[in-house]
């Protein structure tokens, strides 16, 4: 494989891991619980801001850096990050400490944002909930763009590379870590698939009044799901920032981190992890190919990147028209295996 294709594949893998984690969080909220979270970008941005703010400060604290640079962390961020990087090259332990603390903080920020946006919104029904979450999603972008101490305002900041110790395998290590996050979320969703909790979430999704009449606190369960979803989004945001070693509020748009995940999940099917995986991989691949072959289309009198929007919109319309449940539909989930059901019924087999 040529170097160019290797980099393409590794970057594809990295983005795939991030988006899969984010999309599985949407599956938890939409597919399981029926919460139309159009504010995914909020918790993702929160995690990304933590990833942009915390590692450089932890780096200054853990490794030897000229202390005078701390007088203006934003102005000096490139110098500080470079100095920290030099130390992290030979110190994977320090790098992993920074990574773990950052992830913990990003998860906490995501939980807080999930709680903050969910608390007022969770009692609302259907489209009102969706619209309010869509609006709340803009809040951090406005703050990040206009308040420099967070992540340097519109120009953003560079952060230390916690994967620097991996040398030439830095991108591969970061990509695999992103995929590990997605795998963790996948296993979590898989574990609740056949659990009482999974059935309760689906009951709330399908008929909240009936679930409520059976003693389930619908608002509280929805809030818990939004907090859990927020944690996942926050972690994904931080991992994305740590992968790119920089963060700028303009890169955290509603299109990239709310609408695109929705297109992927609706395309693949919100009722199945496999569907979400297929949707995620398809659109990440298309996006990467359009960006990679952008220059081959330079004869067009417009920026070819807009073709991606056109394609996504058209695909979404077609899917909603002809297969609204997505490519992979939800399968019935049974509390007992077929063998256990047969045993309970006193038969050899069902």
């Amino acid at each position, binding site marked *: 494989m040529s170097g160019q294709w290797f980099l393409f594949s590794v970057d594809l893998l990295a983005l795939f891991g991030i988006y899969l984690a984010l999309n599985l969080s949407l599956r938890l909220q939409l597919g399981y619980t029926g919460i139309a979270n159009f504010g995914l970008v909020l918790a993702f941005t929160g995690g990304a801001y933590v990833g942009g703010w915390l590692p450089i400060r932890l780096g200054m604290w853990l490794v030897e850096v000229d202390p005078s640079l701390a007088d203006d962390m934003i102005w000096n961020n490139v110098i500080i990050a470079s100095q920290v990087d030099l130390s992290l090259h030979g110190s994977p332990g320090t790098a992993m400490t920074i990574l773990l603390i950052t992830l913990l903080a990003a998860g906490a920020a995501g939980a807080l944002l999930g709680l903050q946006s969910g608390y007022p919104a969770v009692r609302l029904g259907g*489209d009102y909930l*969706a619209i309010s979450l*869509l*609006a709340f999603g803009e809040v951090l972008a406005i703050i990040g763009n206009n308040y420099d101490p967070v992540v340097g305002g519109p120009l953003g900041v560079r952060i230390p590379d916690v994967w620097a110790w991996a040398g030439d395998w830095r991108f591969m290590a970061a990509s695999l870590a992103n995929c590990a996050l997605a795998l963790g979320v996948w296993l979590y969703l898989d574990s609740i698939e056949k659990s009482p909790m999974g059935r309760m979430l689906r009951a709330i999704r399908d008929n909240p009044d009936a679930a409520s009449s059976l003693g389930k606190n619908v608002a509280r369960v929805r809030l818990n799901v939004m907090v859990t979803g927020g944690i996942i989004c926050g972690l994904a945001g931080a991992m994305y920032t740590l992968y790119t070693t920089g963060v700028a509020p303009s890169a955290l748009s509603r299109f990239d981190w709310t609408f695109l995940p929705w297109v992927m999940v609706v395309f693949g099917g919100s009722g199945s992890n496999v569907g979400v995986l297929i949707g995620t991989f398809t659109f990440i691949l298309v996006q990467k190919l359009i960006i990679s072959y952008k220059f081959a289309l330079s004869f067009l009198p*417009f920026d070819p990147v807009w073709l991606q929007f056109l394609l996504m919109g058209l695909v*979404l319309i077609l899917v909603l028209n002809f297969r609204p449940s997505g490519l992979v539909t939800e399968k019935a989930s049974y509390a007992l295996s077929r063998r256990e059901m047969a045993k309970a019924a006193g038969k050899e087999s069902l």
Partner: protein
Amino acid sequence: MASFIDALTYSALLGLMGFGLTLIRRTTGVWNVAHGEVVTIGSYVALTATSFLAHSPYFYLPLAFLVCAGVSGIIFLAGVEPIRAKGASSILLLVVTIAISLIMIAVINIYADYLQNVFHLSSKNFLFARFDFTLLGQMGILWAAWAALAALTISYYLVLQHTRLGLALRALAEQPTLAVVMGANVKSLSLLSWCLAGGAAGLAGCLFPMRFQCHPGVGTSMIATMFAVSIFGGIEKMYGPLLAGLVLGFAQIYGIDLLSSWVGPGVIPFKDLIPMIVLLLTLQFLPEGLSGFVGRRRG
């Protein structure tokens, strides 16, 4: 004084944008995320017409109204109605309008790129202030925006209260199933609402660059504010967007100007947070919106 006039102008434009959103939600139960892009199309109709045919953008207000009414009608017929006819939920219809929004973002940007690359027009950032006139010592945009909003709101109110069409529209908004049973042509009425809403957005889009900078993402970036206008105004009465536009427009421009004179200019960039805060407070304490609250007090 300048910020007071700006606030008045901005309020009317917000009211026009919110009018369409409220009308669509009220009559067809859909929150149209693509409404922002329809506003942008109004701006580009004005840009194209003034660039190639000369004259003031005011001259092209009817054209912007018609083009955007047509676009909105096509969105309804080609995008929303086929899925709505299958009994889709309000959330699914919202996702449909997101898909349409993505397509329109692409088309608008491709068109803006084309204007810039082929005709060398400044299509990524434009302002029509040079075309404006003065009336009674104030800019023409102030009068034009309020005249458009008042004309739309009053004529819609008169149609709603005094014609058979209005009766059918009210029935559609309040009891869609009953309206069908009574013989109302729901599809035609819904189409009419979408066209009227698109027309209002077109007027707002055509007028917006007379005072404020315009770019391909202008409507997209304002959609959250438009939702705030619609929800804060309440969807029960069509004068809701007018009231909400006034409150939010003043809060975002005049209010923030006053606040900055007390606490310093650092607060100015955060003016876009105001609609979100208002939305949050509305959903918590005034879910029926301003018009619902006024109606309840009267009742």
